[in-house]
């Protein structure tokens, strides 16, 4: 997900600049949004009951994480509601993982993805959270606790959040497969990814991941060139096309990696792909210019193509979605008042305003019941229930994202998150996979 906002090959400076720009934009838009939201919040009378002691005893929490949820709007609202100053730093996932492990004192709150958690939590620089202090713990979407969205759902492959959500004890670094009192990350934001298509140019219904291999789309397809995610999309395609069957797509054996990459190389040599993209804007441009008609995509990119007036659909597929999710973790060194403030921040995060903000961007938030209170019934019906919009659907910045009558691609929360086939993950054979992936790109 960090990959979504940053160019991994680009200089760090560029990232920083982009971050700054984004901040500038959101600050302006926040003012606009705040007016609208102010009315809403006043109407629901919700933002009350938080102690204001932090205003007298100023507390600063340094949070870093991937750009998707490191939103300035959240920092400003947090300051207004709690008096806690959040210093946000947006980094890409690699930098985040590195910093969590090597510079444990440089942050208080880490906003990381679950697969990163699997890599970094055992390093012992984060402390698990006592769920008894998490007010809305019982209402967190069960994907993150038991792993089952509904009692009958199957846990998806890859680094499913529930597998790294709990450790055995307050000082433990060992993940517990079942919920305990000690939670590693409090989920913030998650979503289900699939292929984006140009409905006007594909000329036929798209139903499966393997449709990207259709000879009719020769030279008009693309997948993303970020090894850890690209390999998962490739695995979805291979499995759908009957090339391979994986025990766990999120943790392939060397043989499975070989099969997948060999197939990718063969497909590439046959000229099936037009390009491989790395950054968000590249994927938008490829789609908007018509260079590709079907490709791996992220949901905000689909919205960006659509905002240019170009039809683009985030196509649900029979095999299901590839999902990702992130959460907030606390640094080991936090104690006393700072630790209390961090818990308070997390409780506030789950209390609805942030959730509504994230849901309105097309992502999902951890506690849906509280977020619902901050959304209009129409917004809720559109984003979460998959019903046609009764009025224009606005982004948190107040821009029209969907006009009345539109239906969200993939439908309701249950339809989308219930159809997750695998989660973003880190493989045991990571190093080997990356080497083979480079081979594919060089082939």
């Amino acid at each position, binding site marked *: 997900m960090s990959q979504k906002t940053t160019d991994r090959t680009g200089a760090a400076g560029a990232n920083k600049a982009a971050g700054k720009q984004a901040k500038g934009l959101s600050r302006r838009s926040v003012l606009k949004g705040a007016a609208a939201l102010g009315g809403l919040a006043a109407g629901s009378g919700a933002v009350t009951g938080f102690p204001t002691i932090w205003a007298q005893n100023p507390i600063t929490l340094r949070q870093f994480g991937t750009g998707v949820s490191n939103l300035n709007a959240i920092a400003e609202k947090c300051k207004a509601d709690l008096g806690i100053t959040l210093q946000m730093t947006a980094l890409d996932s690699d930098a985040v993982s590195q910093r969590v492990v090597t510079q444990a004192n440089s942050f208080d709150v880490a906003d990381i993805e679950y697969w990163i958690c699997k890599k970094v939590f055992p390093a012992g620089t984060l402390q698990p959270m006592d769920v008894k202090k998490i007010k809305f713990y019982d209402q967190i979407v069960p994907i993150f606790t038991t792993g089952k969205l509904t009692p009958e759902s199957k846990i998806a492959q890859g680094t499913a959040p529930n597998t790294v959500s709990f450790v055995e004890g307050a000082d433990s670094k060992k993940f517990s497969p079942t919920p305990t009192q000690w939670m590693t990350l409090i989920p913030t934001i998650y979503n289900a990814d699939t292929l984006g298509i140009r409905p006007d140019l594909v000329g036929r219904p798209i139903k499966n991941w393997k449709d990207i291999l259709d000879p009719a789309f020769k030279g008009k397809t693309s997948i993303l060139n970020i090894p850890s995610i690209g390999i998962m999309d490739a695995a979805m395609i291979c499995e759908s096309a009957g090339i391979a069957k994986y025990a766990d797509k999120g943790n392939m054996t060397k043989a499975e990696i070989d099969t997948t990459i060999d197939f990718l190389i063969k497909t590439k040599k046959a000229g099936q792909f037009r390009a491989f993209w790395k950054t968000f804007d590249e994927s938008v*441009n490829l789609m908007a210019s018509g*260079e590709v008609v079907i490709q791996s995509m992220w949901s905000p990119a689909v919205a960006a193509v659509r905002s240019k007036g170009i039809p683009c659909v985030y196509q649900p597929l029979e095999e299901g979605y590839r999902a990702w999710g992130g959460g907030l973790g606390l640094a080991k060194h936090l104690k006393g008042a700072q630790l209390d403030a961090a818990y308070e921040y997390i409780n506030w995060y789950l209390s609805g305003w942030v959730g509504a903000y994230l849901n309105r961007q097309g992502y999902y938030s951890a506690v849906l019941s509280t977020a619902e209170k901050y959304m209009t019934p129409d917004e809720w019906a559109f984003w979460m229930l998959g019903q046609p919009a009764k009025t224009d659907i606005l982004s948190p910045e107040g821009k029209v994202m969907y006009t009345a009558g539109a239906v969200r691609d993939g439908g309701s929360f249950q339809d989308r998150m219930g159809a997750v086939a695998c989660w973003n993950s880190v493989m045991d054979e*990571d190093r080997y996979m990356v*080497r083979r992936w480079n081979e594919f790109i060089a082939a």
Partner: protein
Amino acid sequence: MTLSRIAPYLQATPLTAILAAFLVLPIATIVMVSFWDYDSIQIFPAFVFTNYEETITSPVTWSIYLNTLKYTVIVWAVTLVIGFWVAYYLAFHIRSATAQMVLFLVCTVPFLTSNIIRMISWIPFLGRNGLLNQSLMQMGLIDQPLEFLLFSDFAVVLAMVHLYTLFMVTPIFNTLMRIDRALIEAARDAGANAFQILTNVIIPLAKPGIAIGSIFVVTLVMGDFITVRFMSGGQSASVGLMMANQIALLQYPAAAANAVILLILVLLLVGGILRIVNIRKEL
């Protein structure tokens, strides 16, 4: 007496300090890190050869180096021809010194924009529904868009030639301007035709400029990663791109090993050029 002995050292100190701090030290660090070990999140001091082993024994590395060399040779040849041509025209066909300077400055105008912008602006031009394809189709010259124009080796070479030709023009123009015009007259008096003057007088005298330009172009192309990535649409790789990928995955030691190998290769190429041409004459 002692002061006059120390003076030259003092004079050399600032440059030495700068080179030591900004050239020798970073390279030494890279060499050092190239022997370190790493896992998926950190690097740790060690003295292992695995980074070099994995790099050198992998066929991928070889194909990427070959690919990079291929770009280098093609871009070098094309920029040489164009660069020499432009410089020759500026030096010998434009009579007034003012016009020469003005035209030379015109050559540099595109360089007032960032090279990323110059490169990316090719993308909408060459794309499937880009300006070029649309124009060609409207003129009835083709009925299908030409796909090879973008996200291909052609696009990479085109963008590189566009970006790097000036580095060839400048030094060649400089040497051509220094050629004593009397030599050309002498050659003509001795009965040489225009082609003979070019091959026997001008090109030999322009060699130092050609060599300097070649060094620029070769080092730039060998180290390039962003042009290759954008213009090939991720379809091709270069050594720089391979390093960028490794860095993104925090495999710094592997990237450092690659950097050392690339550095050695580029130094060999530059050494080769310097053996053929004595550029000191020029400096």
